[in-house]
């Protein structure tokens, strides 16, 4: 056992030179939160590609599977991204736990305090605790699913999962939790480090605006998958395949997968 560990065990930690770890953990918590929140917003846009049509969503999915770069789909690439995000998520959750009320006494006093104070930013943090707690389960389950079954992403596969597999309430809850948590988190991050240096009022309005935008986008997207899933339930399990691709995309697709349209004949 190291000398410092023995000193800490002896209750003399305050007499040691201060550890740098609290600073590193604070930076890590902010950093992982920032990456996860930005990832979440990017992810929302990719998932929402279904609003542009089934082929658009299929193209986005195939792009992340490396279909247009490696001569065929490699769903394991999605698994790798899911594993990375899961790792970040676990690390972020572990770091955020340090700030949670640690026992009933702390929870009780905090809740009474926030209720009596009627202070918006304190209440926002309480909501972050609640939504963060919900995400321990919701986001973990979702990320595990993406890690293990990355091939089941696509216009029909995702829609079947949402509707026929009955996961739409799960996605609805996760959407509400993740948008609230990420939006509040980014606002609080800006307050915590005082960067970017816009006014607090502006940042709060921006935060509510973005949360509203992503919630509407998310609800529309979920609705679209539910509709496709409902219409596709008789053909559950069938995968989407576009009949044809735009010419520019077709050129990127692996040889033979889509019939090539020959170059336009030279008029001369």
């Amino acid at each position: 056992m190291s000398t410092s560990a023995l000193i800490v065990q002896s209750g003399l930690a305050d007499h040691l030179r201060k550890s740098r770890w609290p600073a590193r953990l604070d930076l890590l918590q902010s950093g992982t939160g920032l990456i996860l929140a930005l990832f979440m917003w990017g992810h929302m846009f990719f998932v929402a590609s279904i609003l542009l049509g089934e082929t658009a969503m299929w193209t986005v999915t195939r792009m992340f599977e490396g279909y247009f770069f490696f001569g065929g789909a490699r769903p394991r690439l999605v698994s790798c991204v899911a594993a990375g995000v899961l790792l970040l998520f676990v690390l972020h959750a572990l770091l955020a736990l340090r700030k949670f009320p640690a026992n009933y006494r702390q929870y009780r006093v905090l809740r009474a305090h926030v209720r009596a104070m009627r202070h918006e930013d304190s209440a926002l943090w309480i909501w972050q605790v609640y939504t963060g707690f919900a995400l321990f389960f919701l986001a973990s389950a979702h990320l595990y699913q993406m890690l293990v079954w990355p091939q089941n992403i696509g216009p029909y596969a995702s829609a079947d999962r949402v509707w026929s597999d009955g996961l739409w309430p799960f996605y609805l809850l996760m959407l509400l939790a993740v948008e609230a948590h990420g939006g509040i988190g980014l606002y609080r991050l800006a307050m915590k480090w005082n960067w970017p240096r816009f006014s607090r009022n502006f940042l709060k309005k921006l935060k509510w605006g973005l949360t509203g935008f992503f919630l509407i986008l998310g609800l529309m997207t979920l609705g679209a998958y539910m509709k496709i899933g409902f219409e596709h339930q008789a053909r559950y399990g069938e995968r989407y395949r576009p009949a044809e691709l735009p010419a520019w995309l077709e050129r990127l697709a692996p040889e033979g997968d889509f019939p090539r349209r020959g170059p336009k004949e030279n008029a001369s």
Partner: protein
Amino acid sequence: MSAEKTPNPSRRVTLNILRYNPQEAESEPRLQRYALEEADGMTLFIALNELREHQDPTLQFDFVCRAGICGSCAMMVNGRPRLACRTLVADLPSETTLTPLPFFELIGDLSVNTGKWMRGMSERLETWLHARETEPDLGRIEERMQPETAEAIYELDRCIECGCCVAACGTAQMRPDFVGAVGLGKIVRFRADPRDTRDDDDYFELIGDDTGVFGCMSLLACHDVCPKSLPLKTQIAFLRRKMALIA
């Protein structure tokens, strides 16, 4: 042109005051109702004195300066910390609840011992000037300082140690060893002072953990309730950045 707020002279206000005397074994915390006539320009401090003088001489609360300088009369007004001497009754609803500042040692009713905690915090964070000489020469003329530096230090030194920031802080309610915005603000003040010889490594030893700057969860209630409108949000963020660089 905005009209001056004119109090309704006939308005009767009710003050629900938390009564509890920790010195008496049989005392139990309870709310006691008091009603009084609102007067022109009446502050909460005046109202409380009126109550003590004419209705209940046992009512305990603190005050010294009556002008928002000493910070003694801080209390929770409808759940939020405020200075009684700076709170106009005309700005309050007809029924108001007064409770003592949480976190600090309760003396009785609305009276708390902020001084004891402030002194402990000051000793812990060494909030005094650490000059080069251990034995200062009192006859020597003080070193010159740029006016803007002096101004910045003065601005950081406006804290009256009323305890409002700590009473408003969710972190402090959960973790009593947290030094609060008042403690962190004092470190910023001495860090800005060129006469202080300490560097960021020294300050890290004082506040570089979860009882210090990394314990702050940026709930910003301290910033929002400070009766002196100190820019606590900016000060704490500044200190966090400086201390994070040490890691």
